[in-house]
């Protein structure tokens, strides 16, 4: 007997016991319980009649420097980081969106140099533009952007470079980062905890 058939049998017996209660018992409260049992049993039967589908967690992927051969590979990794570990997509979008809370990054790779991009991620307060898009005095942006190479996000230099590669790709630009520029792991850059600790060092190397 399959799992579903077994569950169906349970449901039917729940419904059946509800009917039995209604048939044989006179006092009100048990009868209400019997009625509730019938309703719940029917609900479960309905739930068993629709397709049974579970959602399995996908395999966790690791940033492995050995697999990076071309700038496109790098951008593919950058794409994953942008939308997951880097948490960039919690605020930024690529392309217009109603939910954007921070600047739209579409075309950013064409507008800004890779060095500037790197600096904006690691030292977001370095250059703060004033916001002139409204009447009156220009406002200071409340640069809410966290330093990406520090905790809690803590991307390694390699990871930041691949995000830049991805941003360039999404702007229709040639990717200016070559896989040969990546740090060859003496220590694994993939381990997130280590990467977080080695953040400041990565900044130093970038300059």
């Amino acid at each position, binding site marked *: 007997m399959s799992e579903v058939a077994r569950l169906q049998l349970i449901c039917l017996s729940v419904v059946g016991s509800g009917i039995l209660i209604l048939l044989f018992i006179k006092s009100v409260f048990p009868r209400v319980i019997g009625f509730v049992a019938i309703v719940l049993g029917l609900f479960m039967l309905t739930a068993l*009649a*629709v*397709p049974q*589908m*579970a*959602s*399995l967690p*996908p395999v966790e992927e690791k940033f492995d420097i050995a697999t990076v051969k071309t700038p*496109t590979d790098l951008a593919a990794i950058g*794409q*994953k980081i*942008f*939308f*997951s570990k880097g948490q960039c*997509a919690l605020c930024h*979008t*690529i*392309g*217009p*969106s*109603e*939910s954007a809370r921070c600047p739209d990054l*579409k*075309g950013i790779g064409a507008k800004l140099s890779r060095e500037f991009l790197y600096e904006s991620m690691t030292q977001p307060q370095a250059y703060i533009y004033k916001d002139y898009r409204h009447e009156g005095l220009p406002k200071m942006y409340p640069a809410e952007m966290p330093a990406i190479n520090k905790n809690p996000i803590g991307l390694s230099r390699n990871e930041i470079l691949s995000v830049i590669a991805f941003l360039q*790709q*999404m*702007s*229709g630009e040639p990717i200016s980062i070559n896989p040969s520029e990546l740090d060859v792991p003496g220590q694994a850059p993939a381990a997130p905890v280590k990467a977080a600790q080695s953040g400041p060092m990565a900044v130093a190397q970038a300059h």
Partner: protein
Amino acid sequence: MGPIIKLILLNVVTYLILKFVLPNVPGSAPLPASLIFLYLLLTTSGFLILATVSAESKEEFWGPIQRFLVGDGIGGLQALRWVVLILFPLLVGWQTYNSTAVSDAPPGENRTIHPAPPGEYAGLSNPVPKTPETIQQGKGFYAAFCSPCHGGNFDGKGSAARGFNPPPANFADPTTIAMLQESYLFWRIKKGGVGLPIEGMPWKSAMPRWELELPDEWIWKIIMGEYDGAHQSPRTWE
């Protein structure tokens, strides 16, 4: 017996309409049994609600049934009463037998057609500028790579489509690509059928994993060509 005959008649008429009239409307198709069951259930519960909404109507509906079941003062219907009393358990038994017997029908496949894309694809936008040239290029790529299955008319009826289950998507249908953003199509084309999550039943999809053959830029162009050719527009936030 008025109301109960009405109830039966109502259900029969509804069933006949759903089973034989609706499928023959142009552009329609037979309804699955689950849907017919749902509609019949609604009809019946509606009838019961109306029949029991007042004391009079309830008596009118339930009184005859009660008298019939008990067999009081029903005169010539006594024989029918016995038939019903014998048939009902037999019907229940027959259904039980059927439901425990090994089914002749293979398990239904309720594949999710548009499962959620992986996070890294949900927020992309097309980096290729939308110009007549790029759209034309996209259509060219479409003709070369996609049309054998999805059809030269974007209707999912390509020459190679006939053997595939699930069938190739019909882009002209307003409930396919018109409901999706370009990034979704990008994911589906790039990663192909094997990139689907479990609810999309990736093991059945014949969609190739185009990232092995086409650069991203071509895929973005194909997407533009597809929307243009199928006279649809992508879902946007603008």
